[in-house]
């Protein structure tokens, strides 16, 4: 006779865990596509800057390899999506809504990321960096400003009102609290070390990314641990 405690992990729970892993891999694959697109753009920009002529066999091989990896990742996303769909997993209402919004935001973010990668705006002055603050076209700047300043807050408001449950809400609050403390203490530390000639001048971009990253990590840990 099966013990009650042994029965508490149902097949459906195992299936849910597998689908969680599949979603994670789909996300990583999407990020991989954006990064490789950026690499292709960077490679072609570098050739242009050096005034190289037509593509050589080596260039075609390298670009072909990048394209092949993109195709493999795209196939992996499609396959994982099909497997998730076919699993017939039961998903609570909030999570269904959550998944739809994540897919929407993922596609939206992917388009922005791809645009940035393909237009070479992720690189400033030949210095590839996610913290680049080089110039970009006014149109692209406006599109990104509207996306981050108008679209994202509207989605976030809806998210917190209709999707987030109390456990995730607590995870968000813990993340925000630790992130704001990291910012409050980290920014003046950097400022003092700059005044002491130990570090370069404080820059808001890495501080912003640090704050967002800490909030994200704490939220993830609190929600999924």
């Amino acid at each position: 006779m099966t013990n009650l405690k042994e029965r508490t992990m149902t097949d459906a729970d195992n299936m849910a865990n597998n689908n969680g892993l599949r979603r994670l891999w789909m996300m990583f694959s999407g990020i991989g596509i954006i990064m490789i697109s950026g690499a292709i753009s960077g490679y072609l920009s570098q050739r242009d800057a050096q005034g190289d002529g037509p593509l050589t066999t080596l260039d075609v091989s390298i670009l072909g390899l990048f394209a092949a990896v993109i195709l493999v990742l795209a196939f992996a996303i499609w396959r994982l999506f099909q497997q998730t769909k076919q699993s017939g997993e039961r998903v609570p209402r909030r999570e269904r809504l959550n998944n739809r919004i994540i897919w929407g935001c993922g596609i939206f973010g992917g388009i922005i990321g791809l645009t940035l990668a393909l237009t070479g705006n992720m690189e400033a002055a030949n210095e590839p960096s996610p913290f680049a603050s080089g110039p970009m076209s006014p149109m692209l700047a406006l599109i990104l400003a509207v996306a981050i300043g108008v679209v994202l807050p509207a989605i976030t408001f809806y998210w917190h009102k209709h999707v987030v449950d109390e456990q995730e809400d607590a995870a968000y609050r813990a993340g925000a609290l630790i992130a704001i403390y990291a910012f409050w203490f980290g920014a003046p530390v950097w400022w003092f070390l700059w005044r002491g000639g130990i570090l370069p001048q404080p820059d808001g971009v890495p501080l912003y990314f640090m704050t967002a990253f800490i909030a994200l990590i704490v939220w993830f840990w609190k929600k999924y641990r």
Partner: protein
Amino acid sequence: MKNQLKVLRAMRSWSQADLGEHLDVSRQAVNAIETGKYDPSLPLAFKISRLFALPIEEIFDDEFEGAHND
């Protein structure tokens, strides 16, 4: 906080997703409550209590011994 949620759920052959659907919370929330990593709010605790038709103190145990010494 220790609780009987896992056992009560298993008695009904519900998955975490099933219980999440009944309580209108995510599977992660059900899992966090079951493993004692998250204590539900009072409204959610009452919802759980009504769902299983049991008093809150029969589902959740705050391990407070003081009451027994009175």
